[in-house]
Structures are given as structure tokens and as C-alpha cells.
């Protein structure tokens, strides 16, 4: 895999992360699935997952950039597994609704584990690291849109958290927006 292909895959990763954040946000807006604290921690890790691809696009692929995403994915998988364990007993209804029969935190385990696997596969391709240097000024429109999308989704989460929690304690089991 050459450098250009690796950067394209990093751009696609940003679209994927934006999609995950958008699905969670859609569930929040249309299904009234307000995020619990553990859910918010998982969203935060999805957003942090984007740091590696962003740096790879801006500065060229480096193993250290992928390591950042790897750490974010591992932490996210840990948070999601904790939530799965909280509802693991038979008969437990779980938290919130399910997507295709699987709760969002279980999907999060799948997504974070998948991210770890994909990052590992990417790291196997060493040719992408052959020539490193600033990529500034050579970012395609396709990549700029991906960057804008991931920033927008994170900014919307900032707004949502402010509306939900205000500037006081966030509710453990949120059912409404405090500032609306």
C-alpha cells in the first residue's frame, strides 16, 4: 500500500467515525435515546479515534498517529464492555433500545474491536511510512469534507451535552434536556 492509498483509507476512516457519531445522534434526536454517562464516554472515544486519521492526513502516515487511535479504541472497548457486563444477566432489558436486535453499547464493542483490527492491518503496510512530510496544502476536497464532518459531529455533541446537562451535574439516567 502506497502513501496515497493509506491517506485515502484514513479519510474513509473519518467518514466511518462521523457515521457512527451521526447514528448515535440520530437515535438521540429521533428516538429520544439520551446518552447515559457511559454512553457519553464511548462517544468521546469514537471522537478521539479520529485524531490518528486526522494527523495522518495532515502530516502523512506515521505509526505513532495510528497508536493514538489504537489507545482510544482500546479505552472505548473497555468502556463498552463495562456497560455490556452491567446488563449481562438473562432477563436484563438492557439500557435503551436496540439496533437490529443489538444494543448500542454492544455495537460499540464490535466497532472498537473492528477499529483495533483495522489499525493493526494498516500498520502491517510499511510502504506508506516510506516518505513522511507535511501534507499541508495537498488535502483533497474529499478529505476536507471528512474533517469538517467529524468536527461538526463532535461540536454537535458539545452542544447536546450543554443542553442536556447545563452547567450542573449530568443526570445518571437522562430523560430530558435540562436547558430546553
Amino acid at each position: 500500500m502506497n502513501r496515497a492509498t493509506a491517506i485515502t483509507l484514513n479519510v474513509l476512516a473519518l467518514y466511518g467515525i462521523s457515521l457512527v457519531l451521526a447514528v448515535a445522534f440520530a437515535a438521540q434526536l429521533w428516538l429520544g435515546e439520551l446518552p447515559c454517562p457511559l454512553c457519553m464516554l464511548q462517544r468521546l472515544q469514537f471522537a478521539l479515534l479520529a485524531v490518528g486519521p486526522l494527523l495522518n492526513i495532515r502530516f502523512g502516515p506515521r505509526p505513532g498517529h495510528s497508536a493514538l487511535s489504537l489507545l482510544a479504541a482500546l479505552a472505548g472497548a473497555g468502556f463498552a464492555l463495562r456497560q455490556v457486563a452491567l446488563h449481562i444477566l438473562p432477563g436484563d432489558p438492557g439500557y435503551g433500545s436496540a439496533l437490529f436486535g443489538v444494543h448500542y453499547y454492544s455495537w460499540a464493542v464490535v466497532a472498537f474491536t473492528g477499529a483495533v483490527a483495522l489499525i493493526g492491518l494498516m500498520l502491517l503496510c510499511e510502504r506508506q511510512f516510506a516518505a513522511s512530510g507535511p501534507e499541508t496544502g495537498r488535502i483533497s476536497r474529499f478529505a476536507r469534507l471528512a474533517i469538517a464532518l467529524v468536527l461538526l459531529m463532535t461540536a454537535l455533541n458539545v452542544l447536546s451535552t450543554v443542553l442536556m446537562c447545563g452547567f450542573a451535574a449530568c443526570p445518571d439516567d437522562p430523560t430530558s434536556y435540562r436547558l430546553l
Partner: protein
Amino acid sequence: MRPTYQKETCMIFTGLFILVLATLAAAAAGLRRLALALFAVSLSVNLLTFLHHATDVLPLSF
């Protein structure tokens, strides 16, 4: 019935999202060192928040 989680949580989540947004913005703006520093802070605070609030006993027995 929706299960409830943990003890009282605090407003740190608003701050955490702002911190992560700042990290992403720094990376997007090409401020590599700042992005790396903010990433380290963000991940650390996320982990500390998790450890602080994950106090419910898991319903497991072996």
C-alpha cells in the same frame, strides 16, 4: 424500566467534549504537538472519569 447508572455524575462531560473537540481542531489545523498534548490530556481525563464513576458492582457470580 430503564436501569440507572452509578452515583452522581458531574458536569465534567461538557468539559470533556470541549477538550476532545479542541484536540480534533488542533489536529485538523496542523498543530501536531498541541494535538498530541491535548490527546494525552483527553484520554487521561476520560479514563479517570470512568474509574471515578464506574462504581456499580457487576451482577456476576462464578
